[in-house]
């Protein structure tokens, strides 16, 4: 059995994974928030601002590239 983690470590890991997903996946985050129970004007605005910030830093590029590659494969028939 692989070594385990404590509940506190697990929470930390989950928060890190969310932070990474929110940074690299800011593009879908804004639309996720829109339909989410966490949605609301303030949260939505924050998600949109966050997306603009990550786009300026170029952090959205891997997501966009992967998405375009998949769409290209889907359409190339």
């Amino acid at each position, binding site marked *: 059995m692989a*070594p385990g983690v404590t509940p506190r470590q697990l929470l930390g890991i989950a928060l890190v994974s969310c932070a*990474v997903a929110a940074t*690299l996946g800011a593009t879908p985050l804004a639309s996720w928030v829109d339909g989410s129970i966490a949605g609301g004007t303030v949260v939505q605005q924050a998600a949109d601002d966050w997306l603009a910030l990550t786009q300026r830093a170029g952090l959205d590029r891997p997501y966009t590239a992967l998405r375009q590659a998949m769409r290209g494969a889907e359409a190339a028939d």
Partner: protein
Amino acid sequence: MLFPTLDFMLFFIVVLALMVPLAHSHGLRKLALVAASYFFYAQWNWHYCLLLAGSSVLTYLGGIGIGATSVQRVRKVIVGITVAMHLLLLSTFKYLDFLVGSANHLLHAAGAGVELPFMEIILPVGISFFTFHGISYLVDVYRGDVAVCRRPVDIFLYLSFFPQLVAGPIVRASFFLPQLARPPAERVPLAEPVLLILGGLFKKVVIATYLATDLVDPVFFDPSRFGTVDLVLAAYGYAVQIYCDFSAYTDMAIGLAALLGYRFPINFNQPYRAQSLREFWQRWHISLSSWLRDYLYKPLGGSRGSRWFTARNLMITMLLGGIWHGAAWKFVAWGGLHGAGLVIERWAKPWSGDWAHTPLGRAVAILVVFHIVCLGWILFRADSFATVVVYLETLVRNQDAEMQATPFTLGLIVLGLALHAVPRDVPGRLARLIGDYPAWMWGVTAGCAITAIDALGPEGVAPFIYFQF
């Protein structure tokens, strides 16, 4: 609240946060998990939380009642009444409008000018699953396979635990309740559950969703527009889609439960490599097929009688197993097809000969069983019998038509079958290989993987197929 959504991610983080201060308060921890599970269930329709609670109270009191007496006749009456009440709840919420509709068809055919009113009941998500949990507990207590549970919170958690609440796996009381009786381990496994969750996300978000939108849904919507190749590939595609959809849910459920310190049984074991229908049911939705075997087929007499008696029991079990999947005659027919196949298989076994055990014989058996299963999936997926007839007629007609299937969808079918061929112990072996990975790196890796899976998948995620059951 679907697993692959932001809502669920936030919900699960709150649950993990709750578990930190409650790590050493076993009772409060279970109470918090019950509250979280009811919150999770309320996201569909909070009214049905009352139904879930009622089902749990019935289960708890039934168990106490059975345990309160040693008089076998009284125990039998109590288990009979409580199981009947569970089935009555299930029938009312799931099958009443179906029965009304069927009665109206008969009345119309008989020329009667009356029509029974529909109750228009919205099906409570997961009712088939928590009902079967309740019945499993009551029958196991009656049989003496599990001790009477005197802690209501354990029964409430057993029926409502959110990873398995809406689409299983059906966890036996004898498997789960002992886990609730003792405090969970201080450290939970990480690598294997995370691999299961990420693998499940990929299967659902990428393979199942693309196959549905790009191939299966359009073809099944109007099969008369398509040629034989598309119809064959759509049947294969649905076989892969439903496997990737349902096994993904199960993988995620097992992974989520493991992160909270609980074990679930496996539910799939490479079903499409079965060499017989009997073996298929030992590999597909294992928790349901073993439930039907132990609580229906065996009590009916199983195979302890003449071959006609066994055939009757097999047919009853599979017909009821079929209608368990949904209130429609097509599911009955699907169950009937599998039941008939199981009977024929049993009768033909003495004539199968040594050839069946050669590599070629085994390969032929796998192919034959896979195609029978695909035929069943056409019944299962089609909107109506009329669509099934059109589908099969068009399939054999071999008409010219524009192709719906593409190299992309064909690739997804191949990829889905390749993932299906991965032995079920691979996530565990991988976990042992990379178990020393630093904990924070798991967070980074999981975040990257979630983002990549979302980028690879189409917009939006459809509900899991088994939610409707």
